């Protein structure tokens, strides 16, 4: 019956405009999806959804940038389409590609047919350049998706400056120009998230088309909430101590400061070990879970040593 598929379709796509109407509802929605956002994050996500602009999320590694996009997709009940960028990615991996093999096979198979005319193919590409031979890659998929989707372009700073230009058309006008087919416009405007680790400066053209959100390490209070949500059984004092330690470590000039995921790792470790106190020596567990470089562990161990060296002073110039 025709009525049934329609019903399930409508139920699967709830009205999402209300969920993004203001900061409070976004915050609540994200919390239901398991992501603890603060007012700034919720506010910017709400603005991006209402303005229909892509959102560029920048910040140090491990602060929840990718997780934000996933949680928004979950909250809005939209499919998440993910494009993982890397150096050397080109339009055949990001936008679309023609399926050459299928086309060649089709030509070889159709050659025996009387209606087959090589000239007609060369003239208007009829039969060979149509949508059935078009392999859609994530960006095109997000645009042509029958349901409104969330597009996550992960680690866009790893892409060359030249390739960034490919994304511009999609981000600004939500359309893709395929020379043989013309312009494919969006059926539904996707919610676009771009994440970047700031290993290089993105081009001005890209930044101009996006809203900007800097996801820094969370404040101690928020980090406490995140740890409590991830590891519910851990003692309160231990959580405080842990959060304080991570905060101190981030102020040191380390090569890789501990991120939120490492804090949660250490919290889980402490819970599993049933530790009552957070001990800290060079060889202790704590520093080895949080820090990933030997020189960082040494610097941290030295800095946490008490009394005589409170601050490192700049040598006096004479």
């Amino acid at each position, binding site marked *: 019956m025709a009525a049934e598929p329609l019903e399930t379709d409508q139920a699967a796509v709830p009205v999402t405009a209300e969920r993004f109407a203001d900061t409070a509802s976004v915050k609540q929605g994200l919390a239901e999806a398991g992501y603890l956002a603060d*007012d700034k994050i919720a506010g910017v996500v709400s603005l991006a959804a209402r303005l229909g602009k892509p959102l*560029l999320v920048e910040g140090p590694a491990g602060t929840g940038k990718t997780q934000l996009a996933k949680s928004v997709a979950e909250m809005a009940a939209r499919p998440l389409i993910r494009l993982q960028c890397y150096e050397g990615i080109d339009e055949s991996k990001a936008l679309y590609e023609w399926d050459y093999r299928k086309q060649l096979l089709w030509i070889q198979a159709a050659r025996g047919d009387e209606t087959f005319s090589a000239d007609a193919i060369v003239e208007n590409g009829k039969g060979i350049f149509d949508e059935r031979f078009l392999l859609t890659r994530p960006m095109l998929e997000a645009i042509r998706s029958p349901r409104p989707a969330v597009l996550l372009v992960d680690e866009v700073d790893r892409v060359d400056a030249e390739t960034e230009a490919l994304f511009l058309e999609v981000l600004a006008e939500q359309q893709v120009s395929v020379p043989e087919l013309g312009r494919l416009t969006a059926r539904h405007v996707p919610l676009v998230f771009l994440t970047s680790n700031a290993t290089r*400066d993105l081009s001005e053209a890209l930044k101009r088309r996006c*809203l900007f959100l800097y996801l820094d390490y969370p404040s101690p209070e928020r980090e406490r909430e995140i740890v409590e949500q991830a590891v519910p059984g851990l003692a309160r004092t231990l959580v405080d*101590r842990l959060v304080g*330690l991570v905060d101190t470590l981030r102020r040191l*000039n380390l090569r890789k400061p501990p991120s939120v995921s490492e804090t949660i790792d250490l919290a889980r470790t402490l819970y599993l070990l049933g530790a009552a106190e957070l001990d800290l020596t060079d060889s202790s567990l704590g520093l080895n879970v949080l820090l990933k470089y030997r020189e960082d562990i040494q610097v941290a161990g030295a800095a946490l040593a008490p009394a005589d060296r409170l601050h490192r002073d700049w040598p006096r110039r004479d």
Partner: protein
Amino acid sequence: MTERVDAMRAVEIAEFDKADGLRTALCCTLVKSAEHLGVFNEVFDLYFRPQAAYRAVPEHKPALNLEHAVRAVLRDGSDELARQAAEQGVAEFARFEAGRPVAGVMYERWTLAALRLDELVAQRLAEVAASGVGTAGPDAPGQRLRLQLQRTEVTDRAALLRGHVRKVIRELLVADRGPDAVAKTLRQPLTADIDISMASREQLLEIQRVMEPLRHKLATTMMRKRRNRTGPVNVRATLRASMATGGVPARVVHHRPRPTKPQLYVLADMSGSVATFAAFSVTLISAMSQLYSRLRSFVFIQNAAEVTDVFRDTRDPARALTAIGAYVTASELGGYTDYGRALRQFHGTVGRQLERRSTVLIFGDARGNYLPSEEATLSEIARRAGSVYWLNPEPGARWDSGDSMMRAYQPHCTAAVTCRTLNDLRRFIEQIG
């Protein structure tokens, strides 16, 4: 332009009932880089804070005993109390004069001195340390961490109080002269644009902090620039790929390019004001040593000494400087810079290794105290090496004043540039590839 339109659209739908609704709306549309966030927040606070009229000690609140109030803030960290103490302190001690076009630095300093903040912080830290030793002994597990965390808390609360004092003074200034006038006096450059040789200690720590991400970005850009050059066509791989397209070579495969890494030789002047600049520059370059097939660094005041190992082992310019102190004898530190002699010794040590692929970088102000310049040595170095660059922290206009020998050295260099800030250094390194 686009950003302004976006900003206005965002402001249209911004939530004004939320505390930071307007700030969030403007921030996400106007600020597109993490380094600009600090400046944005400062300027936003100037233009959008509710203005406080200049008033004497507020009548509706009883006057606080300021010393007790500060101690309480250091103990408990109450935001309201800090704000109240700041307001009262500024009213009593800042000696605010209406109409004076100042940035408020002196007001802040007078207020903090009168509140004796540093003294009270030191006292509180001593109390914390003493209380820790009493209970379980300093070596009990977790004790060290607890003490350290308490210490951090105290310094944070002191910073909170300082921040409030600064905000109160700003508000008074804005109420007095209007936000535009105050914004003009702010003039705080971004960290990467601060002149290194004239930076204060706090600024140097700031610069050091941004050096790591900057180094990372620079290394990534350089490596990608080199890798993007494609090698010659790889015929075998192309034919293999063409099997997928029915024998038609639709995709051309190239050989991976084998990048020729240049060799870098650095000679840095370590005297007086140039020392800090040289330390930062050489630290930055040494941190990117994987980009160069050979990297050797030398410092000199009168004699040139090789310090490659010192910079290889540490990423901290401060520590590097102290380590170099061991190389450079005390008599030299007080002595006069001798460029000619240093160039001669540099040439003697390294001259034979110089070749077309070598690049020589010289950091210094070329002020040789009227000692012989020995430009013949420099021209000999320039002849052997592929290129010689001179980086001078002084502005171009001062290059030939006094005992500066830039005019003698410049003709022999591939390029002589003024380089004073971290951004200058970065642009230069990107250019030489």
